[in-house]
């Protein structure tokens, strides 16, 4: 039996708002807090309209203090609320690092489950929008390497809403990263009301037998272009959108590389300590004997993200991804 579901054409940022709205309607204890999230509707308008709809006791402009926002959210979460805390940019999460690392991520473990922190931290991130300094940092690996945190990154409006709802329903802290470059890049049919896109599951965007490409967030657009160019050269790519960075979808990663025997991993975060290393170790653990070529990585450099006059050099480009695809196929 199928039931017709109404949809709306939404951008990713609108889909994020819609995800919060759906959950705030359903659950009284879901609250939104952060800098400029109320009257202003967030600097990207991600919380637009929410204060009018739910009131300023549930959509809260906090003082300007990230440690304060996360620290109080931990207390709120332990005491019955489900805070959705907005960090204005991921590059400004650092003052809250202590709270996330020493408390949010380990209260369950410390108390053997007596206390838990069901909260979501939302943060726009990534380079490529000519933002001022620090605003472009892509430091997801600081959090994938943090025991006790889930880390997710949608790349399109549909996933954004469905994954945000899953993140809000998750019993543990989830860092929900929103690639700024994707905020308004496309509109997509997004179902009204509630639906889930599960955490921990990657998505295959394109089927191919020759090379697997792993990417997430804003890099999906880049690798999709690269895969198209590769196809014109007769190379068929399996394009995997990882979506959840912790825990990674081990099954899909293994299944894909066992089919192709070749992999290219793309992320804009620095190479050293990046997700690429984790994926390579997973490939090693699950599929070593299937591999026909060493895995290639196309990543940001081990440098701070440069100011925007140079950021295009820093960011992986479709050209660099195509070169990597050719390298693994010609090995």
């Amino acid at each position: 039996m199928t039931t017709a579901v109404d949809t709306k054409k939404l951008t990713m940022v609108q889909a994020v708002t819609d995800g919060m709205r759906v959950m705030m309607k359903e659950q009284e204890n879901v609250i939104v807090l952060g800098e400029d999230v109320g009257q202003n509707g967030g600097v990207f308008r991600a919380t637009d309209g929410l204060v009018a709809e739910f009131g300023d006791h549930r959509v809260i402009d906090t003082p300007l203090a990230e440690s304060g926002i996360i620290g109080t959210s931990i207390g709120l979460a332990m005491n019955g609320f489900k805070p959705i805390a907005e960090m204005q940019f991921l590059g400004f999460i650092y003052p809250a690092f202590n709270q996330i690392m020493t408390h949010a991520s380990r209260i369950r473990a410390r108390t053997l489950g007596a206390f838990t922190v069901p909260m979501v931290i939302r943060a726009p991130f990534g380079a490529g929008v000519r933002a001022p300094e620090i605003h472009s940092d892509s430091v997801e690996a600081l959090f994938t390497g943090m025991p006790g945190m889930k880390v997710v990154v949608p790349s399109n409006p549909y996933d954004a809403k469905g994954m945000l709802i899953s993140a809000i329903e998750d019993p543990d802290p989830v860092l929900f990263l929103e690639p700024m470059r994707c905020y308004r890049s496309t509109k997509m049919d997004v179902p009204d009301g509630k639906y889930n896109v599960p955490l921990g599951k990657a998505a295959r965007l394109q089927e191919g037998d020759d090379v697997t490409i792993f990417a997430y967030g804003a890099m999906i657009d880049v690798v999709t272009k690269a895969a198209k160019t590769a196809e014109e050269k007769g190379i068929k790519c399996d394009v995997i959108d990882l979506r959840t960075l912790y825990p990674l979808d081990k099954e899909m990663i293994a299944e894909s590389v066992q089919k192709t025997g070749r992999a290219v991993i793309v992320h804009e975060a620095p190479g050293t300590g990046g997700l690429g290393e984790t994926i390579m170790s997973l490939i090693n653990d699950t599929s070593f004997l299937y591999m026909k070529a060493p895995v290639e990585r196309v990543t940001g450099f081990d440098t701070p993200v440069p100011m925007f006059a140079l950021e295009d050099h820093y960011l992986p480009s479709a050209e660099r991804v195509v070169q990597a695809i050719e390298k693994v196929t010609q090995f």
Partner: protein
Amino acid sequence: MEKLFPKLQIINENGEWTDETYRGEITEELTKELYTKMLRSRLFDRKGVNLQRQGRIGTYVPFEGQEASQIGSALAMGEGDWMFPTYRDHAATMTFGHSLKTLFLYWKGRQEGCIPPEGKNIFPPAVPIASQLLHATGAAWAEKLKGTDRASIVYFGDGATSEGDFHEGLNFASVFNAPVVFFNQNNGFAISVPIEKQMKSKTIAQKAVAYEMEGVRLDGNDVFAVYFHTRTAVERARKGEGPTLIEAVTWRYGAHTTADDPSKYRNQDESATRRETTDPVLRLERFMKNENMWDEKWATELQESLTAEIEAAVKEMEETPAPHYNDVFDHVFAENPWPIESQKEAYAHSRGDR
């Protein structure tokens, strides 16, 4: 608290004396210098907003309305002192020695915009709110340890007082008696958040009490009040009498940044009305007229020469050759470690440059 920390003023909105203590020092020469610097920064600021609109630079952070606060305070600092600005304090840094070209380059996304002028201790703009208060304290502490009489000045907004770094900065300066002036510009808003939501405190100056330091609240649109009271704080710092927290009450007319829409969160008519009432540049003009220091021809010529200077700086900025991608790699460490060197080589290779 407003009684304990009254808003100090030397001239009022009409350009009339309200405190004549410094009358002897307020010469025509000083007045004209202040007026020139304020007008220069205002014209620069308007140019910045226009360049952004035309897509010739990136996001720009305007400060129009805050000229007296920034210029009065910067002028109170001396050679060899340290300045720690935010992203909004170009009027302060241009007064202390930054070239207009460098300032424009910063907003064009150029790393060169962070380089201090030869021989000047100007930090790059602090983007992470309140982080710079600790640097200013550290640099001032260093001067104390070295036995000099140099001081630091650090700029920050009302929103910054909520961050932990604000409190840590004040406490360290207090504990180590560091020669630093904490210069707060209270422009009433942190992006969209009004000060009443930011804090219950009625003033920012009163926060000094908790750290047993001098707290001063002043009219930040009165350039004389800013200049003389900051000078007093700097003198105290030089004499080893410790840090001061100054709250300059001011207003920004424009958006938080060119990416912001203030009509979302405040009454823009009210903001526009302030141009006729509390404006710092207009106030000085009124004062000069009252004191017979105003000369129409001088003012017109000044406007023309400043406009020409700013246009020349824009030209210099636009004629600056594009940066080379090696700049991404070559300044992270004194010497490139192998991972960076190999990434640099691979990148050059990918472009067919090597």
